[in-house]
């Protein structure tokens, strides 16, 4: 039996986030905005609770912060490297597709991994293979299809994505 707080706030973190986002949107902490924020923060999770899939929880906030900082660093550094590729002549370009074998299975960490790959310059995630409707079902080995702007060393790229991004995500989500 769920306690009444759980029933009132099915997703407390999301409620806090909605509250903060609403106040940021209005750029004000006037009483009327506080009331509206509270109503939205309580109401929206209640309305949408029925549509939600159960996601993998994670509690390693410190590791998540380290991961975020690392990704931000990589975005800055790799952007500078990619300028040369973008502004150079097209015939020197070596685009390509790469299949990265995945060890992650759960939907949330996979989403974060795919987004990270897209945000870091030079790579865009294209597809997760094979597609899976039921997240609880184990499909065996899965792959992330990545499009690379300038592909030099395929093995090194796969290694980098796995070590730099997938490994910390696995630790964060304990999977």
């Amino acid at each position: 039996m769920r306690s009444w707080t759980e029933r009132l706030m099915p997703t407390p973190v999301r409620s806090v986030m909605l509250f903060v986002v609403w106040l940021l949107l209005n750029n004000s902490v006037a009483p009327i905005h506080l009331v509206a924020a509270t109503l939205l923060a309580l109401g929206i999770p209640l309305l949408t609770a029925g549509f939600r899939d159960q996601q993998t929880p994670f509690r390693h906030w410190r590791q998540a912060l380290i991961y975020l900082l690392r990704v931000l660093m990589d975005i800055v550094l790799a952007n500078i490297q990619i300028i040369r590729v973008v502004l150079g002549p097209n015939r020197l370009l070596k685009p390509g597709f790469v299949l990265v074998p995945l060890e992650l299975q759960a939907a949330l960490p996979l989403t974060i991994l795919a987004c990270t790959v897209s945000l870091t310059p030079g790579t865009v995630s294209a597809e997760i293979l094979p597609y899976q409707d039921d997240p609880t079902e184990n499909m065996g080995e899965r792959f992330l299809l990545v499009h690379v702007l300038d592909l030099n060393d395929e093995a090194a790229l796969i290694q980098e994505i796995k070590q730099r991004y997938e490994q910390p995500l696995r630790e964060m989500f304990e999977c």
Partner: protein
Amino acid sequence: MTGLEWVIALLVLLGAIFVLIGSVALVKLPDFYTRLHGPTKATTLGLGSLVLASLLFFNFVLDELSLQQLLIALFLFITAPVTAYMLVKAGLHRNVDAVSATKNKHLMQLSEKQRPK
């Protein structure tokens, strides 16, 4: 001009340059898949520094509390990779061809197999 204003000016300039490079990439690169790299990247670093500049300017130069820029950054970082993912996926499923220099072109067929029936 104070030191902070120099930093802000530099950030605005850098941001503008990166957004420009992203737009140039969108026009110049040879095919659909490579073109996608421009806008997704430019938004992350270019708009990131513009947002940071705006944050510094309003909070420390004009001395008024303004954190809306954080929201812009948040929405940007959530929507940019999702848009890119959907565009690539749509391209693959519609058999948009990649330039002949593309390595591992056969991998594009893998995506076809999971096209919705």
